[in-house]
């Protein structure tokens, strides 16, 4: 009775070693003219990268992952990295690679396509699209959303705020506040916010749901989540509205996704073409229309209905590369009992 099982197992094992070889494994990166490590989600950028492949005129291979993990992988790979281009979800991971000297300097004409506020100080990475922090609110509960995050510590908002303390964008916003207003002021603000008993959500979409259902009156989110919800469920089903904060308020931080060329890669000439493609009108239009983000170059403005143009936003002036150091921010959030 037992022997057949052994034989069956042997057969399964033999098949197991052969099966992976038979399974399709996509593009062989050794044949590819350019390997991109993308911290941006495949669903967001695949169509654009297909276009990019045509534009640069050679096969590309794309490895998707989390931005921070891919940055760690590039560091581990050192000089032997397979990556020619790093496409990051946020400025922090690019800033970290730049600090370690792992990114190559970009030519000035490429850099000049983007406002200096949205590229690396060392000229080795450039933003490709932007996202703004906004306040989402329920118009049935509040007639007008506050104009500054500093208002949120007032007693009138007690128990009425929703947020995601574990979310990277929220933490980048807190880091931005530290850069703008100093650690002491940020600590006081966090303490005040916590004292107002804000409701914690898992993710930005849940905050929007909570605001829409009136669980909370307002929430701190990124602008594109709201536009994505409108696209997914239809405008009539979305009961929340969003408000862009004026006056360079820290709560109006604009963070970017961006790219850098990995230093020492023999793919640099193709990678350079890829960077220029991502800053071209075609690619910038894609970010505007499809991912509902802010285009940053080629004079493209967003066509998304109701989205105020980037130039009209009063975002705080801040070196996005400095958002690299979140460690101290996390310590503050821990001290405040938020994460």
């Amino acid at each position, binding site marked *: 009775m037992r022997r057949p099982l052994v034989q069956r197992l042997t057969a399964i094992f033999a098949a197991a070693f052969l099966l992976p070889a038979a399974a399709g494994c996509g593009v062989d990166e050794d044949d590819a003219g350019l390997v991109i490590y993308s911290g941006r*989600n495949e669903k967001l950028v695949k169509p654009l990268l297909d276009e990019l492949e045509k534009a640069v005129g050679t096969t590309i291979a794309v490895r998707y992952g989390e931005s921070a*993990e891919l940055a760690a992988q590039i560091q581990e790979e050192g000089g032997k990295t397979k990556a020619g281009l790093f496409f990051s979800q946020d400025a922090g991971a690019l800033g970290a690679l730049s600090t370690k000297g792992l990114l190559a300097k970009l030519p000035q004409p490429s850099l000049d396509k983007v406002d200096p506020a949205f590229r690396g100080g060392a000229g080795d990475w450039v933003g490709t699209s932007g996202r703004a922090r906004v306040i989402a609110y329920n118009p049935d509960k509040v007639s007008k959303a506050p104009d500054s995050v500093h208002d949120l510590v007032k007693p009138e908002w007690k128990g009425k705020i929703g947020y995601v303390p574990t979310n990277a964008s929220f933490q980048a916003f807190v880091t931005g506040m530290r850069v703008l207003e100093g650690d002491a002021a940020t600590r006081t603000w966090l303490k005040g916010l916590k004292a107002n008993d804000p409701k914690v959500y898992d993710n930005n979409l849940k905050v929007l749901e909570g605001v829409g259902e009136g669980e909370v009156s307002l929430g701190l989110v990124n602008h594109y989540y709201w536009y994505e919800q409108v696209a997914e469920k239809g405008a009539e089903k979305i009961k929340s509205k969003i408000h862009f904060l004026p006056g360079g308020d820290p709560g109006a931080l604009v963070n970017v996704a961006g790219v850098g060329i990995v230093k020492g890669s023999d793919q640099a000439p193709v990678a350079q073409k890829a960077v220029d493609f991502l800053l071209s009108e075609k690619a910038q239009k894609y970010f505007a229309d499809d991912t509902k983000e802010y285009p940053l170059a080629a004079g493209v403005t967003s066509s998304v209905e109701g989205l105020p143009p980037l130039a009209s936003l009063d975002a705080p002036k801040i070196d996005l590369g400095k958002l690299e150091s*979140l*460690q101290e*921010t996390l310590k503050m959030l821990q001290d405040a009992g938020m994460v």
Partner: protein
Amino acid sequence: MTPADPVPQTDPAARPTGAPAPAGRLRAGTRPPAVLLVPAAVAAAFALLPLGYLVVRSLERGPAFARDVILDERTAQLLGRSLALAAVVVAACLLLGISLAWLTVRTDLPGARAWSVLVTLPLAVPSYVAAFAWLSAFPGIEGFTGAAVALTLVSFPYVYLPVTAALRGTDPAQEEVSRSLGHGPLGTFRRVTLPQLRPAATGGAVLVALYVLSDFGAVSLMRYDTFTRGIYTSYRASFDRTPAAALSVVLVVMTIALVAAEARTRGRAGHARTGTGTARPAVPAQLGPWRAAALAWCAAVTAVAVLTPLATLGYWLAVGNSATWDPGRLLDTAGTTLGVAAGGAALTTLLALPVGVIAARHRGRTAALLEQSAYAGHALPGITVALSLVFFAVRYAEPVYQELPLLVCAYAVLFLPVAVAGTRAAVLQSPPVLEDVARSLGRSPLRVLREVTVPLAAPGVAAGAALTFVVCMKELPATLLLRPTGMDTLATRLWTETGTGSFAAAAPYAAALILLAAIPSYLLGRHRT
């Protein structure tokens, strides 16, 4: 069989004269044969790779920096929180795993076969999907309770499967003797059955504890701060590998201490039947008036562990209109997943075999060292193991870097203990006397292994392989970093789809993961009948 029937062949005193040791007893002093020792050493070296990497990385900025990270007050605090969670989850898993195993193997539970497949399915549920399901249903559950519930319900099969294999392998005659000597069913279970299940149950319990220590998905969604979250924070917030490595070394030390402590509790008891004759299948216990309660228990566990995540998937499908059904892609991805998971399970089981046999049959420093090495990296978060393999592969094995063989090797490093535990428990149940007889008849150690040890331990080895297969299927962090560029598994697609909040499109991939996990459970169940 009535209690009055004598069962002389299982009388412990009736040991054949001249047998070197009581059944299943570990042999002190005998060196494992080279045919076992060499492959076991290879497997152990393999499993120790992450530790080598961690030592390099954590000392990158000098020992003082590493010491500061480790001695930070918060490190101890987080460790305490992780251990508390592990203790509660282990206790709950033992309760669920042993009770369900006994009900499905040893009683006249209606539909035992179906239940035995159903209760293993939760293993395929990624911990963050389980956590997500529980949070959607009960938002107030977050924190310690939520993390404990979610982790228990995905990891109790770690106890259930080996205990089931052990129950099938034990000779029911011993229990019958106990009954004939006047012990009630409960007394018999406690005095005879439970001690026989101990190697399988504690082996499973160690795996559960290490799984809890390494988990990131459930604890981060439940917002229960643990040691692993500290490690991830180091990577994700400060993009710094050095503190992450120093903290990981602490996890390795903890793991080795835990495995050593478990080994100490094993004692010297024998677990195999001896004497002449063969074991019969057990006569199922009559549940009688308890039948309804037993059914309710199985149904309740299945409902919370399987239906909750499935209901969440159904909800995802219902609310979003992002459901872009692409059956072709789903099928392709499922095929690839089956292939890499089977490859991972096969390599892991092969590597685990010599380690498991040595751990069961030999005592002493070498045996202990080999087993502890196999476990060393098992509490590490997947990302740490993945980075260590990146580190070694780009330096010493560049041709396979980001190719299938390396991914399969990564699974073996990650899941070696899962297969070792299954093998060890199974080998313990077969009497070493048979191996001695085979040796005395002139069989070489390799032939003894192939013709005696492995066939006798096959059900337990197969259970270990099945477990490994399922955990390989849902592995994410190492798969993301080490897969061939462009390859997708069900877990990576699930990650992609949920990453943009397209839960409706994610649901079929999660459902496929759970359905595929039913295959090995079903095959194991078939073997039984």
